[in-house]
């Protein structure tokens, strides 16, 4: 049980009690450098998981809700949105691509707009953390670690206490609004298509992605692939490429779903240095115990001495 709350953990499923021979830990490697922003992942996810509609602000099912955030009218991950494609428009210095000499008079140097617009697109998802705060704090046991190493809500157990929601350092899981029949009141998030994994299929989003921006597979393999891809991009003059969530030494013990980004994480709405809150829980309990003993001692001491 060492490193159960924090630090690198080779096999979270084994830590959760699955016997030897359980399936390997799987995950997503989302390579945003090839994302074209088609939102096929969002659509495939909604369809496969039969998710109800939700507006860009997630509390009213208003299909016409416009955010004014580039092409992103989804807004954020939520209880009925397990994949969210972020769109960022940036004005950056223009990169000159080598021109083909056609023998025409060259345009005058140093004129025109020295900037250009760069698009960043990234399909966000639950990180299926190695140390998942949502799972740690769930009081009912509705949130579990699966045999595949992913994190899953059992809807028939969840009582909607809402604790998992502020516990998640990435702002992924949320409470579904709306009628009971559609799951209203319960907490929902990406299941990594648990129902497809069992049948040997890939999650719907990875299957639908036309550019292989979303890659699914055993986590070890994905990490190797990501390192290779990063090296290639650095070679090809994309020094801003970086991996996010791949490192087992990070604050959550590494993500089951990690990313290749082209800018700082917070630009995409991701926390730059997330830490699982339960890392500090032993210390919290110690402080609470000392504080409770302070109360007990104060009350007891206040009865000392005679009465008037």
């Amino acid at each position, binding site marked *: 049980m060492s490193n159960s709350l924090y630090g690198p953990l080779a096999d979270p499923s084994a830590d959760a009690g699955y016997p030897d021979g359980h399936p390997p830990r799987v995950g997503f490697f989302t390579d945003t450098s090839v994302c074209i922003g088609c939102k096929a992942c969002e659509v495939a996810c909604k369809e496969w998981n039969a998710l109800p509609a939700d507006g860009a602000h997630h509390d009213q099912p208003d299909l016409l809700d416009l*955010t004014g*955030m580039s092409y992103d009218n989804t807004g954020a991950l939520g209880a009925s949105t397990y994949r969210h494609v*972020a769109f*960022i428009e940036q004005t950056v210095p223009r990169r000159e691509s080598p021109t083909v000499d056609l023998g025409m008079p060259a345009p005058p140097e140093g004129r025109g707009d020295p900037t250009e617009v760069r698009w960043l697109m990234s399909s966000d998802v639950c990180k299926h953390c190695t140390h998942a*705060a949502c799972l*740690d*704090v769930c*009081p*009912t*046991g509705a949130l579990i670690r699966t045999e595949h190493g992913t994190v899953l809500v059992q809807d028939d*157990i*969840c*009582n*909607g*206490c*809402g*604790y998992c*929601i*502020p*516990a*998640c350092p990435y*702002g992924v*899981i*949320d*409470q*579904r609004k709306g009628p*009971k029949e559609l799951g*209203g*009141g*319960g907490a929902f998030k990406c299941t990594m298509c648990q129902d497809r994994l069992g049948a040997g299929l890939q999650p719907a989003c990875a299957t639908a992605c036309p550019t292989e921006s979303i890659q699914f597979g055993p986590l070890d393999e994905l990490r190797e692939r990501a390192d290779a891809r990063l090296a290639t991009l650095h070679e090809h003059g994309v020094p801003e490429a970086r991996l996010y969530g791949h490192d087992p030494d990070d604050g959550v013990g590494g993500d089951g779903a990690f990313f290749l980004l082209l800018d*700082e994480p*917070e630009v*995409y*709405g*991701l*926390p*730059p*240095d997330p830490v699982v*809150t339960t890392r*500090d*829980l032993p*210390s*919290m*309990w110690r*402080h*609470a*115990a*000392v*504080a*409770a003993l*302070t*109360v*007990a001692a*104060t*009350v*007891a001491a*206040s*009865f000392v001495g005679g*009465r*008037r």
Partner: protein
Amino acid sequence: MVPDAEFTSYYGRPIIKSPTWKVPDVPLYLYLGGAAGTSASLAALADLTGRPALRIVGRYTALGGALVSVGALVHDLGRPTRFLNMLRVIKPTSPLSVGSWILSPFGTLAGIAAASELTGLLPGIGRLAGVGAGLVGPAMTTYTAVLLANTAVPAWHEGYQELPFLFAGSAMAAGGGFGLLATGDVTPARRVAVAGAALELTATAVLERRIGFARKAYTTGRPGMLLKVARAATVAGAAAAVAGGVLGGRRGRLAGIAAGVLLNAGSAATRFGVFDAGMVSAKDPAYTVVPQRERMAAREAAAEREV
């Protein structure tokens, strides 16, 4: 409102999700749970030392507080009919699970003690239950601090060392304050109330000094105002409690009642303020990004020094 600090975000959207916990349900649960915990301990010792008036007030406050706490907790659930799922497992990593296992026996024991008080039946069992509730009482006053702190909400998490003491103080001020409403010898309640007020004020001051960037959530806007009101009421209440002891007699009792009301107002305002500070810090991405960036910069600087 975005604090003035250099940081980037995704269209100013929050990074973490705000708690779906409702007001007044949850702050009320924090306040009354604390008041009930202290009251049960006071009642148990009042019983054992022969202070019937203090025992009666304490037992009723303990039960009332526990009942409203449970009610608020259940009302706050997205699926209230499944509230018993809280007792499906025992999970030390979930303060809400631990809390449910503290609150349920506490409520049951406080209920037995109060029922025996009301009916006059089975005084022996009432005393036993009352002592049991009194032993669990202190845990009632501080587990809720861990409940808030064990989240990604910056203003709560960053304050995890101070919040248990802040809540303990607030709970003693409230429970002692209820005790001051009793007739007869209320000296122990007075001492608990004044000590609680002092602990609450000290812990708040330490928290605001130590917490770093999230200080702003506690000192400005609505939470800042609530906490200012709380501080004023707590100081005035503690002063009135001391005055009541000095004056004695009818005027002393009146001062004690005023103290009880003020201290409870202060305790409640503290819980609403702390709750609100967390909400503010959850909605603004700066509270998540800036401290994390500072942490990364400090780490890099340390690594460079080592080279």
